[in-house]
């Protein structure tokens, strides 16, 4: 039996100097701005800029193309970046790591390719009621094309999944479970290892949307035994325009390509073109070379801090936020109170529109997100127009949380 919960490993490393870490982020270090919108996109450390500058000034060219030295150097760095990502998520084989444009692009790729290979009319794709639109719409587009149906795992009042509904929703028609690991609007951490095990018992492969999980906890794709996994670089201190689609080789490689173009072909003839295997099959055209190389530096940076340390820090910060909110603000309702959550705290001030709260916080130099967080079905489930969402990262501080609550108090007074 494999280890089902890799995050439960004991801590052994020395305490982290979080003030020194904060100093690595030029936009927030030494500034008054309280950036609590990390779930939308995280801030960037200096190592990201340094890695890009280094490549631009020493070894930039297109990859997989030329015999010339620069192209070889660039290719080496790009492929080394793939290895770094593979190691970061503990993929068995770096070829299982495909660079994409982001989580949305990853899911669109899989939805198309998986749909072409495996979906027949009447088949079902199982999602949950707390998915981001990016893990709903690509499946709907595919289902419409293929005559398939979308089924949905319901969300309970506390913002966790109704696990008792699973058996009724899984069956021979279910061809894939695609599920968010950490909810971007509630912070709920879904019991992914359990859900994967459950789906596998029915012979159903599982795709994990790890966009909000990868920034906050160690990921071990072999330990959780997911079949596919997607995440974005920009939500974990990396560049925008880059993401990852991981897939187990025996399931991923046989899928037909999503996009055609250069670099992904084996041999092109007007009569018939044959394609490369993993990972190039799914990387048509010139990839985000600079982004991938810089992302590798960022992942090394995060690994040096330690993803377990980052997780512990962020859980501590968001738990402290939640407790103070509950204790000191009876006029505020937390939306999503599942036992297991990380980073994200969503709430509503009773009788006040989230946007009013967001605008008044913005005037006090606090960045939060307000609205439906690209989760309209979930907002409808709770019968609300949206929430105010504070999402914390490891470089945030307890002092910022204290200042946030002073500003929230003032906001509520202004909205009296």
């Amino acid at each position, binding site marked *: 039996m494999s280890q089902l919960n890799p995050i439960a490993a004991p801590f052994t490393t020395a305490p982290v100097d979080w003030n020194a870490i904060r100093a690595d982020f030029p936009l927030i270090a030494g500034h008054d701005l309280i950036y609590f919108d990390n779930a939308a996109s995280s801030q960037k450390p200096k190592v990201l800029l340094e890695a890009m500058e280094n490549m631009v000034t020493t070894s930039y060219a297109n990859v997989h193309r030329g015999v010339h030295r620069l192209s070889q150097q660039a290719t080496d760095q790009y492929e080394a970046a793939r290895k770094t990502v593979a190691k970061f998520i503990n993929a068995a084989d770096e070829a299982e790591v495909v660079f994409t444009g982001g989580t949305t692009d990853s899911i669109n790729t899989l939805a198309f390719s998986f749909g072409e290979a495996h979906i027949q009319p009447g088949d079902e794709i199982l999602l949950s009621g707390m998915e981001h639109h990016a893990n709903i719409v690509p499946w709907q587009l595919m289902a419409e094309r293929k005559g398939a149906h979308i089924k949905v795992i319901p969300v309970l009042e506390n913002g966790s999944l109704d696990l008792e509904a699973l058996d009724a929703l899984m069956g021979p028609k279910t061809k894939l479970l695609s599920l968010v690991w950490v909810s971007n609007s509630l912070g709920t951490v879904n019991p992914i290892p359990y859900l994967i095990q459950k789906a596998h018992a029915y012979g159903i492969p599982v795709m994990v949307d790890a966009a909000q999980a990868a920034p906050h906890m160690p990921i071990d794709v072999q330990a959780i035994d997911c079949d596919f996994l997607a995440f974005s670089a920009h939500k974990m201190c990396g560049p925008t325009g880059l993401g990852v689609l991981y897939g187990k080789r025996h399931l991923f490689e046989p899928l037909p390509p999503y996009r055609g173009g250069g670099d992904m072909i084996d041999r092109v003839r007007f009569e018939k073109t044959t394609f490369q295997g993993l990972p190039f099959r799914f990387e048509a055209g010139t990839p985000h070379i600079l982004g991938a190389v810089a992302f590798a530096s960022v992942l090394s940076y995060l690994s040096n801090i330690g993803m377990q340390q980052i997780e512990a820090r962020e859980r501590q910060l968001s738990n402290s936020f939640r407790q103070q909110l509950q204790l000191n603000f009876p006029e505020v309702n937390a939306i999503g109170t599942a036992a297991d959550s990380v980073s994200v705290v969503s709430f509503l001030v009773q009788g*006040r*529109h*989230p*946007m*009013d709260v967001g*605008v*008044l916080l913005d*005037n006090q130099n606090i960045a939060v997100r*307000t*609205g*439906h967080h690209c989760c309209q079905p979930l907002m409808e489930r709770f019968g609300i*127009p*949206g929430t105010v969402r504070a999402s914390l990262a490891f470089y945030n501080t307890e002092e910022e949380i204290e200042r946030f609550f002073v500003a929230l108090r003032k906001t509520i007074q*202004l*909205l009296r």
Partner: protein
Amino acid sequence: MNSSIDETVEQLEADFAMFDSWEEKYEYVMDLGRNLNWPDHLEQREDLLIQGCQSKVWLDHEMQENKIIFYAASEALIVKGLVAMLLNIYSNRSPEEILRLQPDFLDRIGLSQHLSPTRSNGLHSMLATIKRIALAYYTG
């Protein structure tokens, strides 16, 4: 007798010039919002909804003696206040007056951030809709 559209804008700018802090500005806007009233039918009519990402805005109008009377509703208090401000300026005006007014007063009062096309609160669309309606009557 109503003041002219230019006088209304001047008065608004004068009001805003007196405020020393952002708090006072927003208190003023929110007070306008608290006093905004609208006919009940607005919120029931999907076709009157101006698509905005965060805060819904409904807009209706009627023509009376070459003046366009606008009615608007919203959910968020600050948006209600901004809506009330826009109605104060643009409602009960002739199409010519509406089309002639340059909306740069919003920059001068320091609230244009709420009306820029990238702020998805429906207000920019509301202003565009007001102008489109005026243009339709003007060319009509």
